[in-house]
Structures are given as C-alpha cells and as structure tokens.
C-alpha cells in the first residue's frame, strides 16, 4: 500500500515539475544569450490556449504540442522585434508581454471554456509499465515528460559541449566583442529568444493537454514566474534547473500530502509557503559564494545591444 502511494506521489511530482522545467530551460537559453524575457507567464498561457484549441479541433497530440511551441515562439518573436529590433527596454517589454499573453489567451479561449479534452496518452510498455513502484514512474508517463528530460540533456550539451553553444554564451557575456569578431549578435539572440518562447509554449501546452486537460483563464497560475525564479535559483546551470524544478514540484506535492495525512499540526498557510521559503533559503545559501554565481551569470543580461553603441 505504501509503495503504491510512493509511486503515485512520484508521478504527481513529475507532473508538477515538467512545466517548470520546460519554461525554465527555455528562459535559461534566452538569458545565456543576454536577453532577459520576463514574459514567460504570458508565453505559457498563449501556448496553453493554442495547444488546447488545436488539440480539440484536430484530435492530434503532436499537432497540439507543435501549436503550443509555435504560439510561444510567436509571442517571443514579438518580444524580439521590440527589444532586439527597436531596442526597447527588456524588463518593461517582458512585463508587457505577460499582460498581453493573459489577455490574448483569454480572448482566444473564450469559446473553449468548459470543454474537456482527452489527456495526452501515457506510455505503456507491455508489462514494464505494471512493475510496482518503478513501472508507472519510468514507463508510464506521457511523451512530454520524456521530452523534458531529453531537452534538458540537449540544452546542457549544446551550451557546454558545442561550438554554437560557446558562441551563444559569448554573445551573452560580451556582445560587442562577439560582434567585432563577426558573430551575428542579433540573429543569435533572436534564435535564443525564439527557443525560449517555444519551450514556454510547450510548458503551457503540458498544462492544458496533460496536467489539467482543459482550458481555463489564467490556468498557468504563476508557474511562469516560478520558472523565472528557478533560472536564478539554479545560477544559470542546466543540471541545477532540473534539480530545482523537481525540488519545487516535490515540495508542492509534499505539503498537500502532509495536510491530507492530517497528523501534522502545522498551519496550512505555512505549508503553502514552504516551497517559496525553501527557494529563498537556498538562494541565500548559494549567494554567499558570489564569485561562482558571477561565473555563470551572463554578464550582459538585460542590456540592450546595438552594433554602433
């Protein structure tokens, strides 16, 4: 019985962590190129609503996920035009993008409220998925959960093991130096921002296709902001983002279980606060070693780049 609960809890934690992982990894790549896009929440919402609409109309999970990614990238493209093309302030534009995403998704989803959709199919590998404990965790997830791991590994490899990744990081460290030796700074940043948008869109798609398979206004409920915090919390390291996403997802689920078990006399409000509190504590602990953070933080983050400036 306990084993069953354990595996079920593990599955819940994975579900809670997956959208955070997608959005945070996307944002990491954008920030590594020197662009701070605070519009993650808006991009996730836009991705969620379009993925839902396409999923409902076509019945295809793959098309739905692709639509979510495309919608996120489209939102990011708007951000890129303003910040990379017209040199608008990144912080203000990112905030505007979130507000825009909230409104746009509500508008697009207006006639889809109150319509359920069958969830994304879960993997089923013969008898393997029925193995107690490990079966549902390792072999019983939907495609997006596996994709999130593959994507994390891919991003980590790209950033630290490929030449293109090195170029992207150098653009984030010192765009003027990169520009002077002939790298197309704006194009590289555009690609990074679009990737970030696509990942946020997939994170949103996961919410509306798998986590709670429906569309409801504002259903991302702040997860975009958590993803943003995660990037800083992880001090811009992919492996730590993975860890952070699961820590956060785990704490969220654990506090619900603690409440439900009814044995622990801790106020519910405090338990609700625990994930955030833990984030702050870890942040403080890590921040004591300032040099190591500086090594990972992109030096030019949030600064507007102009080739003549």
């Amino acid at each position: 019985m306990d084993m069953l609960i354990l595996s079920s809890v593990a599955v819940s934690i994975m579900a809670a962590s997956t959208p955070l992982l997608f959005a945070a990894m996307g944002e990491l790549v954008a920030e590594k190129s020197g662009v701070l896009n605070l519009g993650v929440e808006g991009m996730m919402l836009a991705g969620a609503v379009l993925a839902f609409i396409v999923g409902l109309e076509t019945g295809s999970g793959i098309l739905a996920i692709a639509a979510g990614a495309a919608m996120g990238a489209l939102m990011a493209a708007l951000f890129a035009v303003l910040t990379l093309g017209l040199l608008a302030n990144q912080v203000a534009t990112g905030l505007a993008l979130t507000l825009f995403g909230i409104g746009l998704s509500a508008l697009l989803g207006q006639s889809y409220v109150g319509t359920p959709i069958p969830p994304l199919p879960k993997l089923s590998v013969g008898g393997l998925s029925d193995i107690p404990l490990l079966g549902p965790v390792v072999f019983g997830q939907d495609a997006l959960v596996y994709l999130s791991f593959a994507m994390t590994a891919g991003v980590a490899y790209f950033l630290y093991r490929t030449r293109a990744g090195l170029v992207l990081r150098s653009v984030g460290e010192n765009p003027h130096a990169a520009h002077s030796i002939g790298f197309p700074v704006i194009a590289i940043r555009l690609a990074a921002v679009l990737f970030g948008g696509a990942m946020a869109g997939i994170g949103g798609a996961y919410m509306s296709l798998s986590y709670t398979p429906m569309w409801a206004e504002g259903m991302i409920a702040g997860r975009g902001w958590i993803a943003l915090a995660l990037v800083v919390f992880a001090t811009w390291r992919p492996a730590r983002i993975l860890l952070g996403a699961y820590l956060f997802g785990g704490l969220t689920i654990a506090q619900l279980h603690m409440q439900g078990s009814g044995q622990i006399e801790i106020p519910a409000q405090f338990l609700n606060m625990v994930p955030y509190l833990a984030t702050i504590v870890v942040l403080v602990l890590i921040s004591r070693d300032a040099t190591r953070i500086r090594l990972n933080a992109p030096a030019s983050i949030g600064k507007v780049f102009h080739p003549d400036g």
Partner: protein
Amino acid sequence: MIKLTRRSFSAMTLAAGAAAALPARAADPFKVGFVYVGPIGDHGWSYQHDQGRLAIEAEFGDKVETSYVESVPEGADAERVITQLARSGHKLIFTTSFGYMNPTAKVAKNFPDVMFEHATGFTRASNLATYAARFYEGRYVAGILAGHVSKTNKVGYIASIPIPEVIRGINAFTLSARKINPAIEVTPIWVNSWYDPGKEADSAKALIDQGADIILQHTDSPAPVQTAEERGVWSVGQASDMAKFGPKSHMTAIIDDWAPYYVERTRQAMAGSWTSGDIWGGFDTGMVKMGDYNSALPEAAVAEAKAAHDAISAGTLHPFTGPIKNQAGETVVADGATLDDGELLGMNWYVEGVNGKVPS
C-alpha cells in the same frame, strides 16, 4: 487627502448628474452594472454571476443595458471600478465578492440615487442591499450520496480559504454523510486560493492517494472532477454543472443560480419598488440547486438525497439540527435544537468526523 477625494468625488457626481440629465429620455435603457472577482471564463463563481447578467438581458431585452468588469481585485481598485460604473449612468450595480464590501459601501454613500447589491457581505444602507446563498444546503445533500457510496470511508475535501462559508460547507457535508455511514471521515486540504486548476488537481491526487474515494471541492475549477474521473473515484461539481469533465465520476453538482434574484431585483429597480434588504436564500429561493444525479448512483441514495432536498426546501429539515458534536466529541448542539443564522455565519469549528484543525 480624504477631503480632496471627497470633494473630487462630489464634483464628479455633479458633473455626471448634469451630463446624465441632458440625454435622459423615457426610452433610454435601464443600465445595470456588474463587478466580478474572477474572469467570466472561470466556469465557476464569476461565470455563474454572468449567467445571471445574461438572464437579465434575456428577460428585459432593449429595456436594459448591462455591462460588467471582470477580474477586479478586492480593495482600492474595486472602489474605482464601482465609482466608474455609478458615474456612467448605471442605476443598479451588483458587486459579487465578499472583498468588495467596504468599497461598495463607500461608493454607495457617494451615489445615493444608485442602487447597490453586494454579494455575501453584511454592511447595508438604504441604497445598499446584500444577498448570499445557502450553499451548505447543497453540501448536506451531497453528503447523503457520499454516505451511501463511499467504500473506503474516506472523503477528501479541497478547501479554499478558511472562512466560515467554507467551514460551514465541510460541516454540513460531514454531518449528513455520517448520518448514513458513521465511519466516514472527511479530510480537508486547504489550497488558499479560489482558483488554481493545477493545485486543485494536485490536491485531489494527494487525497485519492491517501485513500479517499470521494472528492468534494470548494474551489472553482473543474480540475478536481477531471482528476477524480481519471482515478476512478466520485466527485461533486462546484458552482456550475461539471458533468462534462467527469461523466462517470460526477455524482451531482451544487449549482449557484443567481438569475431569478437578479431578474427580480432589476424588475423592482425599474419599477421603482426596489428597497434595501438582506437575503440569504437556499433551495427555497432557487439560488442553490442540485445538478442532475449520476445514473450510476444507487437508486436508494438518490431517492434519499432528493427527499432531503425537498425537506430542506420546504423548511422541515435544517442541516444543522442537533445532536451535533465537535471534534472533541462534546455535544455542542442539543438533540432537536438548530443553529441560528448568526452562529452559522460565524462558524469556525469542525464537527466530529473532520480530520485536522481549522487553520487559524
């Protein structure tokens, strides 16, 4: 600062009055305004209020003009929105969340000619009425079903914010469920939000993992119903019928129906017979309704639920009739006695059978 605000308010009132006087014709539509705390797309609380607004339009056609402002934060922002509605010629304004109480009262003072209706509050004035619904009557009926169908004797209850309204619902449900099956235990999880589909689904999963085979919710999204369906346990819809989200799992729903009240009050306001007051309506007024009963429920359970509904509606059954024991097992309501409305409105304790403590 306050003086300045007041002066500018009255200046605005005068200006608005003068402006409104010019185009006033007998054929002008009667303007009704609504303030919602959530998006009308929440498929829950605000959605149901908006259904009431649409009912007014359907009833009076060209004779009325309605407008609404959604997702208005409770507090200072609300005051600005309500003032705006009053100033733009709305004669009857519904503010539909508890947190709008003080802003509504303030604005009502500044616009004595405008009629205000505030949901779930207790501050009233000659032009400010209050209204609320006895949702706990619906919870009591849902408890009867739960008492009949639970096999694990564990019920999970996704609770929003620890206010008497929510605690009353938990207690009413627990009382009737344990009348049928005294072994039932109800475990609430507080999510401290009215609306967060992801967290509501997570809570439902946690409760089901811990053995609950019925999920109740006092939050607004259909996510718990969906989760219950996926995991093969029972659920009860909140605010509107959610059967679409869980055809097998949805036992029934506790539906808020504001339409009859809104239509009636608009009719009175238009006729000039509107007076301030306070109404706390339940099954008898049609403000609270039960959704369709799932055909998979045992017939006896449904029959008993319907009987309880009719008895409550007729006034012969009060959900909070003694003997009622608290968590410590002490009798707090004597056999045959009932709790009065004042005690219900301030309820901050659990009855026997609820696990955990009321968050303080």
